[in-house]
C-alpha cells in the first residue's frame, strides 16, 4: 500500500504536468493548423509557443535556429514533421551532456551521512520540498534527520517541525533568530553520533542579489565541513516553476557562491510553464534532479528527462 503511495509513476507525472502539456500542445497544433510547410510564419508562432511556456528567450532562439538550419538544409519541411523534430531537439537539450543519469532516492555507494543543503530565494517551496524529500528517503529505508537552519523567517521552524512530524523524521532546531551555522553544526553532529544516513538542511530564503545573505551560505558550508569534511554532498537549489527569466539569474548566482549540484523545480502542477525545465537544463551544467508536482508529501519526483519529453509529446 505504501509502495503505491510513494511511486506515483507516470500517471502522477502526467497529471502534474497536464497544464503544461495541454498548453504546449494546444498551442503547437494551432501553429501548424492549415499549414503544410514550415516557413517564417510558423517559426514565429513556434517562438511564441516556446517563449510563453517560459522556455526562456535564449533557449527558444537556439531551438528556432536549429530548426531554421534544418529547413535550409532540407529545403522543405512539412509541418507534420515539426512535432517530431521539436521532440528531438528538446530531448537533445534535456539529455545532452549536461545531464547525468539519476540515481533517484537510492543512495548506495554514497557517503554516510549523506548531507543535502537546500537553498533558494524566498517563497519557492524549500521547506515543503525538504519534507517531501525526507519522506521519500524514509520510504526508501533510510534514516533521516532535518536541520532547521532557516532561523530568520517568522515561523519557518514551526512549519518544518509540522512537516517533520508528518514525514516521521527528527528535527534539530533552535530558537528563531539563532545562528543558522550553529543549528547546522548540531544537526550534523547528531547525525554522525547516531549513524543517521540522510541529513537535510533547510536554509532561509534569500534573494540572490543580497551579498551578505549569500555569504552566509558559505559560512554554513564551512561549519558543516568541521563535522563532516566532504559535506554537503548535495547542494540543492529550489526554483519555482512559475518564475520567469529570473530563474536563470537565480541559478547563475547561487551556483557562483555555493557550487549548486542539483536543482529542484517546484509548483509544476499549477502552471503551464514546465518550459522552464527545458531552459534550465539547456543553460546550466547542473541537472534538474527533482520536480514538485503537488502539495502532498508524495508529490515529488526524480526528474526523468525522457519521461518528461514523452509526457509533453504523447
Amino acid at each position, binding site marked *: 500500500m505504501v509502495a503505491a503511495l510513494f511511486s506515483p509513476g507516470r500517471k502522477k507525472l502526467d497529471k502534474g504536468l497536464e497544464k503544461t502539456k495541454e498548453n504546449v500542445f494546444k498551442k503547437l497544433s494551432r501553429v501548424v493548423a492549415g499549414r503544410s510547410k514550415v516557413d517564417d510564419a510558423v517559426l514565429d508562432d513556434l517562438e511564441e509557443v516556446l517563449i510563453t511556456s517560459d522556455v526562456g528567450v535564449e533557449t527558444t532562439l537556439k531551438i528556432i535556429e536549429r530548426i531554421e538550419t534544418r529547413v535550409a538544409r532540407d529545403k522543405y519541411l512539412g509541418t507534420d514533421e515539426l512535432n517530431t523534430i521539436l521532440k528531438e531537439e528538446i530531448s537533445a537539450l534535456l539529455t545532452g551532456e549536461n545531464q547525468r543519469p539519476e540515481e533517484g532516492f537510492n543512495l548506495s555507494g554514497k557517503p554516510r551521512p549523506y548531507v543535502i543543503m537546500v537553498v533558494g530565494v524566498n517563497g519557492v517551496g524549500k521547506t515543503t520540498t525538504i519534507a517531501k524529500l525526507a519522506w521519500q528517503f524514509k520510504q526508501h529505508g533510510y534514516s533521516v534527520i532535518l536541520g532547521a537552519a532557516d532561523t530568520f523567517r517568522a*515561523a519557518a521552524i514551526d512549519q518544518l517541525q509540522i512537516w517533520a512530524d508528518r514525514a516521521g523524521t527528527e528535527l534539530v532546531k533552535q530558537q528563531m533568530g539563532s545562528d543558522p551555522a550553529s543549528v547546522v553544526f548540531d544537526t550534523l553532529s547528531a547525525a554522525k553520533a547516531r549513524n543517521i544516513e540522510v541529513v537535510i538542511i533547510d536554509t532561509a530564503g534569500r534573494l540572490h542579489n543580497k551579498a551578505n545573505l549569500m555569504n552566509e551560505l558559505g559560512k554554513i558550508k564551512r561549519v558543516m565541513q568541521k563535522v563532516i569534511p566532504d559535506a554537503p554532498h548535495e547542494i540543492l537549489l529550489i526554483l519555482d516553476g*512559475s518564475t520567469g527569466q529570473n530563474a536563470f539569474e537565480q541559478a547563475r548566482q547561487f551556483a557562483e557562491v555555493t557550487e549548486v549540484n542539483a536543482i529542484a523545480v517546484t509548483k509544476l502542477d499549477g*502552471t503551464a510553464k514546465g518550459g522552464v525545465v527545458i531552459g534550465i537544463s539547456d543553460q546550466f551544467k547542473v541537472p534538474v534532479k527533482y520536480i514538485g508536482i503537488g502539495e502532498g508529501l508524495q508529490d515529488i519526483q526524480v526528474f526523468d528527462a525522457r519521461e518528461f519529453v514523452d509526457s509533453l509529446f504523447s
Partner: protein
Amino acid sequence: MFENLTDRLERSFKLLKGQGRITEINVAETLKEVRRALLDADVHYKIAKTFTDRVKERALGQDVIAAVQPGQLMIKIVHDELAELMGNEAVDINIKANPAIILIAGLQGSGKTTFAAKLAHLLKTKRSKKPLLVAGDIYRPAAINQLKVLGEQAGVPVFTEEGVKDPVKIAKNAIRHAKKEGYSAVIIDTAGRLAVDEEMMKEITSIKQAVNPHETLFVVDAMTGQDAVNTAKTFNDRLDYEGVVLTKLDGDARGGAALTIRSVVNKPIKFVSTGEKVDALDVFFPERMADRILGMGDIVSLVEKAQEQFDEEEARKLQKKIAKNQFNFDDFLGQIQQIKKMGNVKDLAAMIPGVGKAIKNMDIDDDAFKGIEAIIRSMTPEERANPMVLNGSRRKRIAQGSGTSVPEVNRLMKQFNETRKMMKLMSNKKKLSGMMNMPGLH
C-alpha cells in the same frame, strides 16, 4: 532591477544615432531590441508585441529635431508608452470605510503573509488606522504562527481561531470582533492557491462574498514568468480585485509581470514590496517605474524617502554646528543612522539617476557602515566631540576596540575631515540638505 532593459535600450538606441528621421528601416533594429528586452524581462509575448507595434506607430515619420538625438526621442516615446501601459497615475488604496476590509489573495510563496503585515504597519504608522490582521490561511503549516510573529513586529494584533477549519467563518468572526473592539481596518490573509485549483478558487470567492471587502488585493511575485498573464486573469475573473501588489522587487527581477498584469486585467498596481523589514513597502508610481526602466533613476522616491526620515529640527542644529565647524563624530554617527533608517543603501543609491547602472554589480550591504560605526563607538565621548585629540596611541586603542586596524581608523579620520570641509563649504553657499551627504560612500 530592470537594469538589463535599460542597457539594451541604450545599446539599441545607439543604432539610431545620427539619423535625421525615424524610418521603418532604421527603427526596425531598435524595436527588435526593445521587444527582446521586454521578453527577457518576462513581459508576456503578446503584450511585448503590441507594445512595440504601438511604439513603432508613434515613432514612424517623426522628424528628429536638431536639439534631440533620435535615441532620446525613442526613449521618450518608449517611456511614454510604458507609463501609459502601467496606468499613468498612482491609485490609492480605499480605506475610507470603518472598518475598511482588505482581502489578500495570491499564489503560494508570492509573499501574502509578509505583505499583510507590512500593509498593517503602513496603515498604522502612516494612515492613522487601527488595523487588525486576520489569519485565514488554515492550510500551510505554521502560517498562523508566521502571521503572529510578523504582527508582533508590526505592532498589530492578529485575530486567529485555531482549530476552526473554515476560513469563511474565521473572516466573518474577525470582522465582528473588529467592529466590537473598534478596529478601523481589517486585513485578511488567505492561503496561497493555484489558479487551476478549482476548489481553492471557490473558497476564496466565498470568502470574498461573505466579507464583501472594500479592497481585494492580488499579490504577485515580481519574478513571475509568462504565466502571470493566466494567473492574473483567473484571479481577476473570480475576485474582480481592486489592485495588485508586486513583491520581492528588491531582487533583480526585471518585473515585466507588472506590465503584463496591468495591461491584461487593467487593474492598477498599488504597492511594491521591497525587502524583509516590516516597513519595506512602497506605493507604486507607474511614471517612476517607467523612468526606472529607462534608467532615468527614481529621484522622486529618493527625495520622499529622505523627507520621511528627516528631522527638520535636527537639521537646523546640525546646520549651526557645521557653520561653526563643530561637526563631530556624534553627528557623523547620527547621519549614518538616518541613512540606515531610509533602507537598504544599494536601493537608495540605485534611485539616483546614472548610479543604478554603475553599482549594479557592486556589493553594498546594509552592513556597509558597520566598520565605521564600530570605530566611532570605540571612541570616548571626548574623542567624538573633539576629533582633534585623536593621536597615534588613541587611534591604536580605537582600532583594537573596534576590531579594525589603524589604517582603517586613519581612513575614516580622513573621510571625516573631508566631509567636514565639504559641509563647511556647502553651508556657506546654500542651506544644507543633510541627507545628501553619504559618509562612507566616498
